[in-house]
Structure formats: structure tokens, C-alpha cells
């Protein structure tokens, strides 16, 4: 598997071909998704290394969320290859991606309205006992509630009543639940799709703190955001999507807000990505 990765890294026009292979957490090559005639994602070559926080920016409909959905196998890609954690992967579905160690906050939240906070936090990975009962194994409500409280404590997210259905919570509270969920479970890669889009000032600061904690713990992150300040504050590298293609890959030190905007709007294109028109 590792040799696979090596040949592909040296062969492809990878942006960081000098990277040590062991450092690469996730890598995509020619990742493509077509919805019928819509080319939502076209030939994306992307790479993220250990401890790195990478921002993905781009206009609405640029294909950012589509990119995330292919990595996490919420949808099956049209073509392209994905390496994760040192081996080529073809996840059957989001559960497998998560078992492999990819935690995701989806843009459309992925919470079940009628369940409460602990149920949502542990949805699909419930703490249970009597596991010999298979699908009828028994839920350990107590443990899940305790872990939820600890998780919320850690992320400093305050939810007045974790026992109430998510339906009755504000958009920001729901968002915080979704983020607390990813932050509670240690993962090899965290992906957040516009985590602060619906949040107020204080809650945004809270989420940014969670992200900083991830950075301190050395956990890599892909952050999709339209917020320039946030991206410049939190990330090491910015990858710009335009009309389904990656059109720039910029180190934070080498760029600034105006530069990025130029790439987003199409005023500029990096020579490596010249075919991205």
C-alpha cells in the first residue's frame, strides 16, 4: 500500500511532492464527481499532512461540500483515488470513513431532530452492553450522558438541557452539538464544513477555540469557511476551489486576503492549475 502511495506521489503533479509519505494523512488524486451533467468536482488533487490545518475556500457552489462528501463516502465518487492514513481507500459509506478515523461536521448538520443531545452525539456509535444481542444490544444511557457532559465541558459549549430534543434548539446550539460531536471523538482527521456559518460572535469564538485545541493536540483539520479572518487565524494553508476545480494552493505566509479573493473570483490562477478555467 505504501509503495502505491509513493509511486503516485512522485508521478503526479502533487503540490507537496517533497512531503514525507508517513506525514500524509489524506491525499486525493483526480477526485471527480458528476451529478448527471453537473460537473460538481473535477480532478481534485489534494493533500493534508499530520498536524496541518487546511482551509478550503471558494464561492457558493464551487464544489467544496461535494469534495467533502466524496472523501467521507456519503456519495460514491465518479472517479479518482483517495489515500488515507497510508493506504488507498474506497469507503463503502460514512460509517467506514468514520471507523477509519475521519470525523466530519457536515454543512447540513446531520442531526436527528427528535433525539436529544447525547443520542445525537453517539448516533451510530452508541455505548452499549449485552452486545451479543446484535442490533438489539442495550443502550448505556448513563455512560453516554456522562460522556456528553464531559465532552461539552471540554469544548466549553453550554447547552441548557441536553435531555431535550434537538428540534427545540436554536441553530447555533444545534451547530455546537454537531461540533462537540466531532471534538469528543479522537480522530485522525477532522473535517468541518462551514461550522460557524450560523453562529453568533460568542459561539464562533467558542468553535474557534475548539479548533485551536485540535491544533494543540496535533490533530489535522480541513476547514471549509467563507470567513477570511477565521481562515487566516486558524489555518496553515488555503486551498481555493473554483467551479469544481482546485485553482490555488497557498501557504498562509505567502498570501493575504486580497490575493485569496482574486483566486476565488477567478482574477488569478496559479500556473500549476492553469487548466482549471
Amino acid at each position, binding site marked *: 500500500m505504501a509503495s502505491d502511495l509513493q509511486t503516485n506521489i512522485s508521478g503526479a503533479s502533487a503540490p507537496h511532492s517533497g512531503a514525507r509519505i508517513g506525514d500524509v494523512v489524506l491525499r486525493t488524486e483526480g477526485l471527480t464527481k458528476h451529478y448527471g451533467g453537473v460537473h460538481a468536482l473535477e480532478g481534485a488533487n489534494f493533500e493534508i499532512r499530520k498536524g496541518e490545518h487546511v482551509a478550503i475556500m471558494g464561492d457558493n457552489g464551487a464544489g467544496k461540500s461535494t469534495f467533502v462528501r466524496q472523501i467521507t463516502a456519503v456519495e460514491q465518487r465518479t472517479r479518482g483515488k483517495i489515500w488515507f492514513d497510508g493506504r488507498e481507500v474506497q469507503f463503502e459509506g*460514512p460509517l467506514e470513513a468514520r*471507523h477509519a478515523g475521519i470525523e466530519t461536521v457536515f454543512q447540513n448538520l446531520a*442531526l436527528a431532530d*427528535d433525539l436529544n443531545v447525547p443520542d445525537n452525539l453517539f448516533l451510530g*456509535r452508541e455505548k452499549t452492553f449485552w452486545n451479543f444481542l446484535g442490533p*438489539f*444490544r442495550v443502550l448505556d444511557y448513563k455512560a453516554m450522558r456522562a460522556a456528553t457532559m464531559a465532552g461539552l465541558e471540554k469544548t466549553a459549549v453550554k447547552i441548557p438541557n441536553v435531555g431535550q430534543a434537538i428540534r427545540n434548539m436554536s441553530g447555533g446550539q444545534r451547530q*455546537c452539538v454537531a461540533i462537540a460531536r466531532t471534538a469528543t471523538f479522537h480522530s485522525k482527521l477532522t473535517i468541518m464544513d462551514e461550522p460557524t456559518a450560523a453562529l453568533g460572535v460568542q459561539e464562533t469564538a467558542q468553535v474557534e477555540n475548539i479548533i485551536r485545541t485540535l491544533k494543540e493536540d496535533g490533530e489535522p483539520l480541513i476547514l471549509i469557511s467563507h470567513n477570511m479572518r477565521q481562515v487566516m487565524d486558524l489555518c496553515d494553508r488555503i486551498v481555493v476551489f473554483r467551479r469544481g476545480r482546485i485553482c490555488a494552493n497557498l501557504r498562509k505566509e505567502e498570501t493575504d486576503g486580497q490575493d485569496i479573493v482574486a483566486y476565488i473570483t477567478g482574477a488569478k490562477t496559479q500556473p500549476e492549475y492553469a487548466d482549471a478555467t
Partner: protein
Amino acid sequence: MSGKQQAHGIGGLTFDAKKRHWPNEVNVFGALVLIVAIFEVLGQILMGQSFLFDSAGRFDSIFNEARLTIIILQVSIVGIIAIGSTQVIISGGIDLSPGSVVGVTAMVAMSFAQVAQVNGNANPTAALGDWAHDLPVIAPIAVGLACGLVAGLVNGMIIAYTKIPPFIATLGMMVAARGASKWWTAGRPISFPTENYKALGAGLTPVFIFIGLAILFFLVLRYTVYGKHTYAIGSNEDAARMSGIQVERHKVLVYTIAGLLAAIAALVLSSKNLTAQAGMGVMYELDAIAMTVIGGVSLTGGRGSIVGTVLGALIFGVIISGFTFLRLDAYYQEMVKGVIIVAAVVLDQWRQRRAGTR
């Protein structure tokens, strides 16, 4: 701040931890009490008799036990189906097939439960050859459960893997299974079961089976992963999928269990009636759905419980026996049943809207 436990939430809101959410089942229970009270009053006025209480003046009982027994016995067979419908509806689906599955299962199971000799003559309704007569009771039970399992499995597979709406898929099964139950003996009834088979539906056994299954599925829906995922799928199927729940496999399981419950209802019903007929179970699916909806299970999925459904079934039973008690025609019964079903759905939507604006 006084004794109240308060916490500051996002946005600085306070939350009163002592104020409990009012479960919907309380409302359903209230409705049950109200309906019983109405019949009681009408009984006193129109019939000069009590509906609920013992009017024979005996000292050893307060309630009219005979009536209570009839109420619950009447609904227990459809109630078994309603348990299956409850979990199907919570998962965001619907199952129109159980009535017909009852028909075909009763026919097939009864064929394996017949005695060879009736009063010294050969069984006049024998559906199969001699080899199928006087078998141990486990044979018809196993065959019956297999019937329900297959029907439910087919429903589940079609719904999960072809994405055909549950309404259409189970409508197909409803028609096909009814056809199969008529085809089995070209429409002739099948009678004279063995003594052991008779025991399945004798006396209060149906009630015990209903209550036992209700308790079992109450626990399953509330305390197991299966239950949690059923609610999650009904609540937000995409979220369930993204959380890694194997939605398709789960749906197959949900419909299969519904099929099995329909089969159990069929065994009990054919045993109780001592015969199986191709027309058995007609409209049972609708009665079961009605019990479920009256019990506060939301047709949009994600909300409801077995407790609600059991209360819904009791409301059903009270209405039927109340109308008999008042000596009103069965026509009125059905009309009122229809009104109550629609009212329950309207109430559910109204509750949802109110919850949304709270």
C-alpha cells in the same frame, strides 16, 4: 436563585430543570379517560346503566370486568399488528400489507394444524395431504412465522433497495398476499385444528400475547440500538446515514419484524376462530395504523411510543364496546372511527406547529 436549578445556556437563556416536558402519552391517556367518561354518562342517561362499573351490585368487584375483558380481547389481535406498525411508522414508513399477510399466514399455517379425523370421518376441509395432519403445534407456528418473515423481508428489501415509496411497495404486497390467500385453497376455508393449536387463541391468551409483545417492544424501542436507530431514521434519514447507520439494512429489519408480528396475529386469530378463511384480516392494517396514530405516533416519523399505541388500541376497544353498549349500529362505529383517525392526525400536526413556535 431559590431552590430552582438553573443553568445559563447559549444566548444567556436560563433553563428551569424542574419543568418537565409533558409526554404525549399523557394526552392520549387523557383522551381515553374522557371517552370512557362520555360513555359512562351516556350510559347513565340513555340506558340507566353504568358503562365501566359493576352494576350487578356485587361486593367483590368495582369494575365491570366482563366489559373490560371484552374491550382488551377485541383489540389484542389487531394490537399485535399495531406494535409492528408503530415501529414502521416511527421509522418514517408505512405498512399496508399486514391485513393480507394475516390472511395468507392464517391459511398456510392452518393447513399444517389440521386434525386428520373429525367425528370419525376424514377432515372435510383438509387443505393438504395426510402427511400434514396431526402435526405437533410447532409445525404450523414455524410455517406461519416463516410466511410473515418472507412477506416482511420482501417488503423491506423492495423499500430499502429500490427506493419505491413504502406506501406503494406495501400496497403491492397487500394485493398480492390477499391473492395468495385465496389461491391457497381456491377460496375454501380451512378448519378443525389440533387441540394444541386451539390453545394459541383460547380464552385470554391473545391478551397475554399482546401485552407480552407490547412490553417487549416498548423495551426494544426505548433501550436498544435497534430502537434508537429506528427513531433516528424516521427523524432524519440523511443524518442517520451520515452518522453511519446502515439505513437500508435497518429498514429491512423493521419491515421483517412487522411481518413477523402480522404472522403472530394470524396464528392467534385463526386459532381463536378455529378456522382460516381467505378474507381474514381485511382492513386490519388500517385499524392498526389508526391505533398507532391515535396513540400519538407521528406519521412523519421519529416520534411516538408503544405506550401510546397500547393506549390508542384501548381507545379503539372502548369505542367499539361503547357503541355496542349503547346499542348503536356498526355504521356509526365506523364513521366515528374515521373521524377520530383524522382528528388524531390533525392534533399531531397542531402539536408539532405549537412545539415549533414555543
